């Protein structure tokens, strides 16, 4: 005991704690700037410089190069198709995400954690494997292949397959963002509404939805960003036919492979702009929910 106390006093004498910034003694003063500079350098090498490069290269030859690409037909088709992907898969996954979030957050049942992990599966499965699964199901040699062929419906190398692939990879986002919000909200308000005579729809629209709106919006934004930016899964099922099944990310790769650097960067800068908008909206939503918390 005595030994410990003496050791303690000794160390206290060696480095007297400063009351305002207690652990930051003089000998440690170099740690903070070194860590900050290290972090900024690391992020610059991996993130900031590559990100800045997209914008610089896109407008390297002035805005004309960008505008010329913008008028090309395959490019316009790619934009149209990218918007179509988001327009179909975002509502689908929003409805599913809301239903799944309600089922998981409002019920206790055996296998609940397993169901959560299953919903998360598309995040850990390679997009290429996701595309492969859809080819094996709907392709010519797939389970539904003969049936689809008999009815003259094309899924693979066509838009339906691309929608399925996009919906697969974006499936978890809404459910994942809404579940914690629903759990935190609890069911008191909903039960109060029901006791006061509201039916299920009224309870959902007037009580549940307003409480989860920011979480839901967050999930929708992430779904949209991924749906517009998905590459691997769509590359497998689409066949990458220019002007017909080529979305913007596929256009980027195709143009790059054909050494049309300007075209590739013109498409890339649009997608990077989408990413920046996504991040800004995300930040705004996070701040909104944080203000509500405090």
């Amino acid at each position, binding site marked *: 005991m005595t030994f410990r106390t003496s050791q303690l006093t000794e160390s206290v004498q060696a480095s007297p704690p400063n009351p305002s910034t*207690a652990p930051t003694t003089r000998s440690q003063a170099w740690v903070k700037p070194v*860590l900050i500079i290290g*972090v900024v350098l690391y992020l610059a090498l991996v993130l900031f410089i590559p990100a800045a490069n997209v914008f610089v290269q896109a407008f390297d030859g002035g805005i004309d190069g960008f505008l010329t690409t913008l008028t090309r037909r395959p490019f316009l088709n790619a934009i149209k198709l990218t918007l179509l992907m988001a327009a179909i898969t975002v509502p689908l996954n929003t409805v*599913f995400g809301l*239903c799944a979030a309600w089922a998981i957050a409002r019920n206790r049942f055996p296998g609940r954690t397993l169901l959560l992990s299953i919903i998360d599966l598309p*995040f850990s499965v390679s997009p290429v494997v996701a595309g492969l699964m859809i080819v*094996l199901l709907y392709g010519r040699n797939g389970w539904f292949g003969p049936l689809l062929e008999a009815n003259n419906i094309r899924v693979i190398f066509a838009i339906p397959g691309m929608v399925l692939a996009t919906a*697969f990879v974006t499936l978890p986002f809404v459910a994942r963002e809404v579940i914690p919000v629903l759990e935190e909200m609890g069911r008191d308000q909903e039960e109060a509404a029901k006791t006061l005579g509201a039916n299920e729809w009224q309870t959902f629209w007037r009580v549940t939805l307003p409480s989860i709106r920011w979480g839901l919006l967050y999930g929708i934004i992430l779904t949209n960003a991924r749906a517009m930016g998905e590459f*691997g899964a769509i590359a497998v099922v689409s066949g990458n036919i220019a002007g017909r099944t080529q979305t913007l990310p596929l256009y980027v*790769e195709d143009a790059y492979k054909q050494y049309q650097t300007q075209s590739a960067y013109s498409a890339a800068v649009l997608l990077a702009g989408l990413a920046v908008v996504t991040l800004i909206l995300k930040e705004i939503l996070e701040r909104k929910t944080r203000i509500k918390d405090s």
Partner: protein
Amino acid sequence: MTNPTLTRSPSTWHNGLDRVTHVSWPWRITWAYLIVMLFLPTAAMILKASTLAPADIWRIATDPVALSTYNVTFVTALIASGINGVAGLVVAWVLVRYTFPFKRIIDAAVDLPFALPTAVAGLTIASVYSSNGWIGSLLAPLGITVSFSRLGVGVAMIFISLPFVVRTVQPVLQDLEPELEEAAWCLGASRWQTFWRVVLPPLLPAVLTGIALGFARAVGEYGSVVIVASNIPFKDLIAPVLVFQRLEQYDYAGATVIGTVLLVASLVVLLIINILQAWGRRYDV
């Protein structure tokens, strides 16, 4: 005396029937959607793999080209997610504990790899790290080529898995009271002792979860790697690109077997993540 189980059994039975016939709409939509979107495709692949003879599966899965792609994919992903394990911990520490200019922007920008389409990431990394790019031209005189080599695969994987550790560690670090460290200091612990014995243990589950999430993402990554790498077998060909190439050659058996290997790997990682998260919760009490 009546048997309580006997009197109760009709009502439980009725409840059970009730549950089957009166399943609410959200439940039905959830299951129908999951079956169509997730279970059917997964079953299609697993059953396709099971139609092959076990000897064929083994031959395809352990083919030298396939083995080399596992090496490039899993080892590079492990190194990349490991680097981000350390770097992510430092980034999270700096973002939570220090204040400095542009902190909010830097904090928000950490999520860029989640938001930036992978094809764009591949395109820009390939050109920035190529021998006449901004960073590549500095490395070229040292004899380091990044683009179109395994090193480029590593850089793309580092980019892709960057946010995971930062985002898993940040909330835990925020809840960790600095008083704990001060107490350790006052009790005479050195800076290293404080870090190893007081700060790191509660953060470790979060760090490992982040590494596992980043690893899973890096193993499955296709878009950025296919553009950055030269995709030559035994050099920098990764398993997802091999699946894609096999499909392009209409070799469905080959694609399915290697795809199944990747699926099993991601299921194992998912299991590890669940165990890590359960481990992390023991600090919640």
